[in-house]
């Protein structure tokens, strides 16, 4: 079983309570099984009784994890409880025990992986993923910035580049999708691929090499791209109330990759970053790490979004800034919050 590769995490987390306060799902369901300890304990039982893997208890718990990796980020030993859950999902899929809605979604995602490159040949290519495509203001803002920075770019569109499939436990399908993306990318001749969605960033930075897919391109999150171009941009200083914003950490950028560019880009533009909620360490994840949680469990995503809303100083007035189109989408849709992405914030100063 794949979970055996994460035996160290399983054995460490099964009796450890030290990061439960950061368990976004656990904090809204109040269930002990929705904590790193609870999940590891269940999987430890699976390692002793493999037939338990197929139980509703294990399957449903694994598929409602937020996969935020806040626990790994916090843990002094950085045990990979997230990796353990992903391995369990893979085991579940391979055992043919994936829930019907998961199987259906995976089939749709697999079919969607057909990528199209548009625009004139350029060194840079911008990936418009599903969540960015749903919110055209994000790609619009990127376009404005790229033009101001005089960076010609192509676009690549299409469905899942493998990340959502991988998080669902469909490793082979994820590999196929990632290969299709890599092929389209290679054919485009681009040297740099820029993505707005941190999930895509993580897929290209970490999943592709792990799946044996070599990318010839440099991978950048838009915040990194923007931070690199700021010196050449003529930006107004943010003024008045609009200059103070609450930045919400991204699961993928902070907890998986430790990318500091979003904060850097915002502060260098003159925005004052107010502390959101009570503490920077707190997990305000709305399920970004799980990529497709709204499709699987909208009720849970609503709870997560409402939890974030409840931590706002003024949910009606505050502007939240995120580096994740996913987070913008769910916080807007499920909690009615005012959320902007880094691209939008910076382009508003042009």
């Amino acid at each position, binding site marked *: 079983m794949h979970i055996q590769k994460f035996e160290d995490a399983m*054995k460490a987390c099964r009796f450890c309570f*030290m990061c439960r*306060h950061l368990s976004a799902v656990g904090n809204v369901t109040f269930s*002990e099984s929705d904590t790193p300890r609870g999940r590891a*304990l269940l999987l430890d039982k699976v390692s002793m009784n493999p037939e338990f893997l197929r139980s509703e208890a294990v399957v449903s718990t694994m598929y409602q994890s937020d996969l935020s990796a806040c626990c790994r980020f916090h843990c002094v030993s950085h045990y990979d409880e997230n990796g353990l859950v992903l391995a369990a999902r893979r085991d579940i899929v391979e055992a043919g025990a994936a829930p019907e809605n998961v199987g259906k979604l995976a089939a749709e995602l697999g079919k969607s992986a057909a990528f199209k490159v548009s625009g004139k040949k350029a060194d840079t290519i911008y990936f418009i993923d599903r969540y960015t495509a749903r919110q055209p203001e994000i790609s619009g803002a990127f376009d404005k910035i790229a033009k101001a920075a005089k960076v010609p770019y192509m676009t690549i569109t299409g469905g899942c580049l493998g990340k959502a499939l991988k998080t669902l436990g469909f490793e082979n399908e994820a590999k196929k999708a990632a290969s299709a993306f890599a092929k389209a990318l290679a054919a485009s001749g681009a040297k740099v691929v820029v993505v707005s969605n941190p999930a895509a960033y993580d897929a290209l930075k970490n999943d592709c090499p792990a799946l044996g897919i070599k990318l010839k391109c440099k991978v950048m999150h838009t915040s990194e791209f923007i931070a690199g171009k700021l010196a050449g941009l003529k930006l107004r200083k943010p003024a008045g109330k609009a200059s103070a914003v609450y930045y919400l950490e991204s699961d993928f950028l902070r907890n998986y990759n430790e990318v500091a560019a979003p904060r850097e880009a915002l502060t260098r533009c003159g925005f004052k970053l107010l502390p959101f909620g*009570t503490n920077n360490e*707190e997990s305000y994840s709305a399920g970004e790490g799980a990529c497709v949680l709204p499709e699987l469990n909208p009720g849970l995503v609503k709870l997560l979004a409402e939890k974030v809303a409840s931590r706002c100083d003024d949910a009606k007035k505050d502007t939240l800034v995120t580096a994740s189109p996913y987070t913008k989408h769910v916080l807007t849709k499920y909690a009615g919050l005012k959320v902007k992405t880094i691209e939008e914030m910076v382009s508003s100063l042009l």
Partner: protein
Amino acid sequence: MLPSTSNYMFEMIRSELTDAVGKEYVDVREADRFAHSVDYYWIPEMWHDRNMPNPQADLIVHPGTAEEVSKVMKIANTYKIPVVPWGGGSGSQGGALPVLGGILLDTKRLNRVWKIDTTALTVTAGTGIIMRHLEWEVNKAGYSTMHLPASIACATVGGFLAHRGTGVLSTKWGKIEDMVMSLEVVLPTGEIINTLPIPRHASGPDLTMMFLGSEGTLGVITKVTLKIHPQPEARKFRAYLFKTFDDAMDAGASLMRSRLRPCAIRLYDEEETRHHVKRVFGLDDISGSYLVFGFDGYEKIVDLEMEEAMKIMRKYDVRDLGSKGGDMWWENKYKFFYPPYMFHMPQAFGTLDTVATFSDIKNVYHAMKKVVNENFPEARFIGHFSHWYEWGCMLYARFIFEKAPADPREAAALYNRVWDLAIRAAIANGGVINEHHGVGLKLGRLMKELYGPAKELVLDKLKKELDPNNIMNPGKMGFGF
């Protein structure tokens, strides 16, 4: 007892509970019942590790208000179903385990911060809030509860109240019982009561103190008002290495007798210094007994106190590790509790914490050490002293077997034997069963030995009067089934 889940009567009771707290807050899912069957007590962990089924609750309820808790209690009384409060499950004594099944009342939805009073400097909160979340809320307002236990991230405020818990700054700021202003409690029969709004009075016996440490056997604590404090301007530490543990203990006691007010003192015996302080801090060249202390408050006063404390230390043959040696402890104070630093299977381990006066504490330590070493030569005994009072201090002793017997029953028997002998040695020398982890399932059998006739004459009668159907956390604290 609850009827089996195949009996429609089970559904009748479940419907009543659903009506009381809402459908989404009555959980019968196997996943959650399973996760609630193991707390931080070694026995259920070992039982799980040996692939044995732990006893599970039949139903888990997550009430969101005292009124909902009250309704649950009334239903439980009608059908005489056990109710076990569960906060974070981080208790090490098995207190939150649903050993007889029944209803597990998870308090985590009682997590509202009701009020931060910046005039009286108090905070009122639901007891199901995770301590770390409460501390962050209070920090945001510019204050601190000063209750900073190693389990701050995983235990609820209610759990600390139920166990009379303690934090790393207890030496100055007190244990949780010193921090409480008042409580709201749902009695086992479902009535909601409040204790007096202030902790100091001459209006009869103190009801607040009666419920503190009651470990869910006398009711569910649903709301608490705690003192809060301004964040100190400075907090400074200094560490020393003593040649012997006895010298270090004398120095620590002198520091407390001087009536200086350190916020923390921690003294590690030679064994723990050698194995754990060294490993966690990455210090290579240390031996002897490590003592660290700190002061907090206005910087000028902190510096003055530190100077006086250093004078006391200089009277001994010590190596001064300076403020760096002290800061290292503060920065790593919780690191001990994360894997792999914490003890883990296949080890068998337990924290034999007790407390005694300065006249008795060395005897307690040596007696416990002797009894463990002599009876269990394969076990290691280590200890540190982490919470200090004007009159004595707390011993946080631990025993560790590198490998427990594979047979779970043998392992449990061995484990219980260590506790019986070590705790009896503590009691015989002026110690008590426990200082801040509570009694729970682990130590209930020793309550009679500790309290003598007062157990039956006072504690048992109190329990019977408040909980006539014995539904509240049966089997814990020596109250039996």
